[in-house]
């Protein structure tokens, strides 16, 4: 039983970090109805930028983290301003491909710029695990999960603020928001900026666990699984689905891997996506007006 609990708790903490990445996908989809497939690469860029500030330039942690988040906000907004804004009104296939193009470009550009070797990112979390009864809990996962939980909570709070209400209005009806004087482009730009920040946090946390290199962008498939399962327009859904995907991803390999010879972890996210889309395309908490055939 404690084997199960250990897997589940560690999984839930990892899942919270996935949820943080997925937050960016949900924010962008909610406000602009655009699928943000560049989120994995954004997380990778976040990790690289943080490494650049902390290790290469030697900035202290308290300075490097906010600085890299500011940079990530700029990167997110920049993508929206340069690429996405010109694509308004184009078929959805084009917009999906554009964000995928951004993902590929960043995935090539960041290692080319900063070097492809795995970089150690130290954010001051000790290596030894937390011992809870007879369970071992990864300390980096624990802090990562905690930070993710706080940030997702903050984003829920943000939606009650004035800017948050603007974002919700844009999410509800772009034309109507325009009519009452909301600057829709700015709201969408803001959502991309926040997506960048969420990706940056996830990249820093996850990068401190596994090191910074291009594999950070593989967070995309996990984040997509979380976003789809939770419902593409539900922030609360991200939290629940993140924990669910994280737990499944840790528990299933824990029991099935010894039977089939390993590697089932990579399969969980893909299976979750497929099953959700086949059974309940709008996810656990999403609105039901998803485009169906």
């Amino acid at each position, binding site marked *: 039983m404690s084997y199960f609990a250990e897997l589940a708790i560690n999984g839930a903490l990892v899942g919270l970090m996935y949820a943080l990445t997925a937050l960016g996908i949900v924010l962008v989809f909610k406000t602009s109805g655009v699928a943000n497939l560049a989120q994995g690469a954004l997380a990778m860029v976040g990790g690289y930028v943080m490494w650049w500030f902390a290790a290469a330039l030697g900035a202290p942690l308290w300075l490097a983290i906010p600085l890299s988040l500011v940079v990530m906000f700029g990167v997110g907004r920049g993508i929206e301003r340069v690429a996405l804004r010109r694509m308004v009104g184009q078929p959805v296939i084009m917009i999906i491909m554009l964000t995928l193009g951004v993902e590929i470009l960043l995935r090539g550009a960041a290692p080319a710029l900063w070097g492809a070797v795995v970089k150690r990112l130290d954010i001051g979390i000790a290596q030894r695990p937390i011992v809870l009864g007879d369970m071992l809990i990864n300390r980096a996962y624990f802090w990562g999960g905690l930070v993710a939980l706080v940030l997702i909570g903050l984003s829920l709070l943000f939606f009650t603020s004035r800017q948050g209400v603007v974002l919700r209005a844009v999410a509800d009806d772009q034309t109507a928001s325009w009519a009452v004087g909301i600057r829709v482009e700015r709201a969408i730009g803001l959502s991309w900026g926040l997506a960048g920040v969420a990706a940056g946090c996830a990249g820093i946390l996850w990068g401190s666990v596994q090191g910074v290199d291009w594999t950070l962008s593989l967070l995309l498939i996990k984040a997509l699984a979380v976003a789809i399962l939770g419902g593409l327009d539900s922030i609360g859904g991200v939290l629940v689905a993140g924990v669910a995907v994280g737990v499944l991803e840790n528990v299933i390999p824990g029991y099935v891997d010894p039977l089939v010879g390993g590697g089932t972890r990579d399969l969980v996210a893909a299976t979750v996506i497929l099953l959700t889309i086949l059974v309940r395309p709008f996810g656990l908490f999403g609105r039901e007006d998803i*485009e169906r055939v």
Partner: protein
Amino acid sequence: MFYRLAGIRHTSYSADRALWPVPVDRVQIAALLLLALLAPFVLPNLYLSSYLLPWIIWSTAALGLNLLMGWAGQIHLGYAAVMAIGAYGAIHLVRAGVPFELAVILGGVLSAAIGLVFGFAALRVKGLYLAISTLAMQYLVDWIISHVPAISGGSQATLQAPTFRVLGIPIADDRARYYVALAICLMVTAFLLNVGRTSFGRALAAVREKDFAAAVIGVNPYRFKLLAFWCSSFLGGIAGAVLAFCYYRAVTPEQFDLDVSIQAVAMVIVGGMASVIGSYLGAALVLLAPIVLNNLVDSLAHALGLSLSADVISHIPLILYGGLIIGFLLIEPLGLAKVYDNLRNYFLVWPFRHARR
């Protein structure tokens, strides 16, 4: 001036509906065909086997994907998985003693059967959800291929393609392999050139434009979406089999991972949706641009006395795919086919630019 239209009068319906009504176009096509046939005797072996051969095979694959994305308007991010099924299927069949011609077709049928499962997702959802579910299926197929020893021969294993004969002729050197690939590419091209003129192609176009409008005019969108997935996966399986037999001559799971899917989609988008010539041009650009740019960067670095790190060099292809996709979507969403079309229209009336077309 060029592409002279004067004096071309269609006196019968069949002449009016010819593929290339302008004689110059026919001459062009014939010249290109002749060049393609003579290439092995003219080109050095290096160019034949490392540029022309992959270009021909990837054009076949791009044509297959273009049928789905361009003509039927469905997005597919798992095309490499479909190609992998065809490649593995064909190699296993030939190893089991099935003749090559039959094995390629059966590999295509296997791909089509499994590709149809991708299509069932398209019946439920579209757009973004279809993109993500095909992405997920790519992961599933990759995983199954690399983790089932009966298919891949064990993890990290490479399956050698056995020697094979086509129509009784043993295929031994690059020249023969090139002709096999070319023959299959020409068949696929002929199919796609004609698909837009059949009721099937028109039904696909109707489904692409608006599926419920298609249903209103009596086109069953379910049926034609599934048919589009079936045909496109069949062509993809064949292209994968040819790629494995004629180019790689061996098959490993890494040859068909997600990046390859994205590369195939890049070919279609850069080339131009629903365009045959666009598929050729897109495949050429996506395949050759990284090589050319690599050489260019290399010689530039030498000329300027800079030393570029291996990291930069090895990531140029990725940067280029991304850049090409973004650039074409923003600047010329209709792709290279539209660029070609613009050029052709310019020369149609050159030097009289004011003339009505």
